[in-house]
């Protein structure tokens, strides 16, 4: 069963943090709640933990309605963005805390506590730090201790709120691979909140994309990246080129230019936004190619692939400058022999078309 939330609503004053959110988190999976700041993902996580209460809706843990049970009784583990380690306790005491505050009947003996804590510290590979204080540890070490502390009470569910948010880029990358491996080892149903799409796609079994208090799409990292369900998901996951136009038959009219699309359900004549990722565009120099005209601004050739930045031309219905980005292999760039300032045509290899609703960033 895992975790289920049903029709969760939450208002902060006038602000609608969560708008009728229903989700199912399968047992043993690592799920990412992904979205921009203010989209409600942390609020949802705190509601699942019981640190915040929903205005309406249900939280179901392991098949049991937990909406009205106290945080203490929910048996969740929570990892905070800023670690929230107890500053005045040693690492050992931090991890032991959850065991020591148990009611006398359930509390394990001192020897058992010691064994358990040391095992957990070994699991997070920090058993040599048991006698240190949190202030003596690095950020990455603190977060691992926070994780060990959360696991000490054997939670049914592990909730992580931006667990790598306060760490620098290199440590963050190491730690998320480590978290992935750890999860494969312990298989506790886990939900982690992040605003970093790379982190979500890399670590999670399943990604839940949220925006403005509602769920945009749920799917595996491949699904959400390759087949985004909404314009928001498209532009949030990775860089993207936007074309505003009108659909007619199998082409999209963008100003005086035409782009071919692979078929869409959008009605003929309606105003649309078309999306193509940088690697889904090709550059053509032949004048009769079907595509959007642009001028090459810069060619960046470091790394495994080359990036070409372009500026759209002849698109009069949009006052603001249209920027495009194309990703090519270095060989392709060499073969094309493109120069900065050159006039070329952008031809999409794949184009996703959505009905135009709102301005998408």
């Amino acid at each position, binding site marked *: 069963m895992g975790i289920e939330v049903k029709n969760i609503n939450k208002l902060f004053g006038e602000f609608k943090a969560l708008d009728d959110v229903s989700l199912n988190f399968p047992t043993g999976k690592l799920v990412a709640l992904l979205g921009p700041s203010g989209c409600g993902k942390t609020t949802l996580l705190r509601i699942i933990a019981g640190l915040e209460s929903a205005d309406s809706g249900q939280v179901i843990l392991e098949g049991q309605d937990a909406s009205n049970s106290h945080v203490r009784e929910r048996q969740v*583990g929570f990892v905070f963005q800023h670690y929230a380690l107890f500053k005045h306790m040693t690492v050992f005491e931090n991890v032991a*805390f959850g065991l020591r*505050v148990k009611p006398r009947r359930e509390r394990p003996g001192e020897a058992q506590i010691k064994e358990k804590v040391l095992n957990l510290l070994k699991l997070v590979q920090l058993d040599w730090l048991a006698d240190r204080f949190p202030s003596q540890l690095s950020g990455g070490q603190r977060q691992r201790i926070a994780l060990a502390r959360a696991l000490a*009470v054997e939670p049914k569910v592990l909730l992580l709120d931006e667990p790598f948010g306060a760490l620098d880029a290199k440590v963050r990358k190491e730690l998320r691979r480590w978290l992935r491996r750890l999860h494969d080892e312990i298989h506790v149903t886990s939900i982690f909140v992040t605003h970093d799409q790379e982190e979500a796609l890399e670590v999670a079994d399943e990604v839940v994309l949220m925006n403005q208090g509602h769920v945009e799409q749920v799917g595996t990292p491949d699904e959400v990246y390759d087949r985004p369900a909404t314009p928001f998901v498209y532009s949030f996951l990775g860089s993207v080129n936007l074309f505003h136009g009108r659909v007619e038959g199998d082409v999209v009219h963008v100003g005086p230019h035409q782009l071919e699309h692979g078929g869409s359900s959008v009605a003929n004549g309606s105003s649309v936004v078309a999306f193509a990722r940088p690697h889904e565009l090709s550059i053509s120099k032949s004048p009769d190619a079907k595509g959007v005209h642009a001028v090459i601004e810069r060619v960046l050739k470091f790394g495994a692939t080359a990036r070409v930045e372009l500026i759209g031309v002849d698109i009069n219905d949009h006052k603001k400058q249209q920027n495009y980005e194309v990703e090519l292999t270095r060989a392709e760039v060499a073969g094309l022999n493109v120069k900065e300032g050159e006039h070329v045509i952008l031809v999409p290899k794949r184009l996703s078309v959505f009905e135009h609703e709102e301005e998408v960033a």
Partner: protein
Amino acid sequence: MAGGIATALGAKSIRGNQRINNATTESPWVRRLIIGTGLFYFTIFLLLPLGAVFVEAFRKGVDAYLAALVEPDAMSAIKLTLITALVSVPLNLVFGVSAAWAITKFNFPGKRFLITLIDLPFSVSPVIAGLIFVLVFGAQGWFGSWFLDNDIKIIFAVPGILLATIFVTFPFVARELIPLMEAQGKEEEEAAIVLGARGWQVFRYVTLPNILWGVIYGVVLCNARAMGEFGAVSVVSGHIRGETNSLPLHVEILYNEYNFAAAFAVASLLAVLALLTLLIKTYVEWKAAQVNAQHKED
């Protein structure tokens, strides 16, 4: 005046340990002028009066000094002052910690108003504070006749002194803790609750250790004020010798009777108390800064 000391000490340590950075320091005579001014004020307003207390206290010799302290009225004043502190400080400690806990860890309507209310004793003159209690509990006051009928004495008796002192020292602990606890946030408490800790366990094992130095600091200040309060206590006390005279009131009476040596002898007790308070306060501040610096690295 503390500025004077700091300037003086600061200048000394610069000269002693560091090369003077010409880009950020003033010319020598400007420095001398500022330090001189500081020291001048420090001497006139602090050192001299403090010295005078002890000089006057011992003017008639050590025997007279001790005699003034063990004299029955003085002893009873000391006793009353100790009782006042012993009652009002623990009460304010309990109140202050619970108020700060409620205000910083929970959200409820009227929170700002409550904070303002806690500050009230700071903004009201102590004499007015005393008068409030006379008006409410005095013989002519709202509940005066009821108390008279039931033979309960509050004004011109020890309970009135306790009430006035508690009122005046009301904000010390809470005021000290609220900013501290606000800055610490509630994440550690939340972590403890998720781990299964009960309310009192959270307080005992997580909150209290984090605010311990702030609590001690508040108690020290509260105690100093409780023992030294003059205005409010003077209004409600009735100045009955051997019964409702606290140390500060006793000093006044002795002084008005031209018994200067005795007055200063008793005053020196309060001065020693003040110095002790300062010493503890400095230590606590230093200790708290250390603890804070350690936590800052988090």
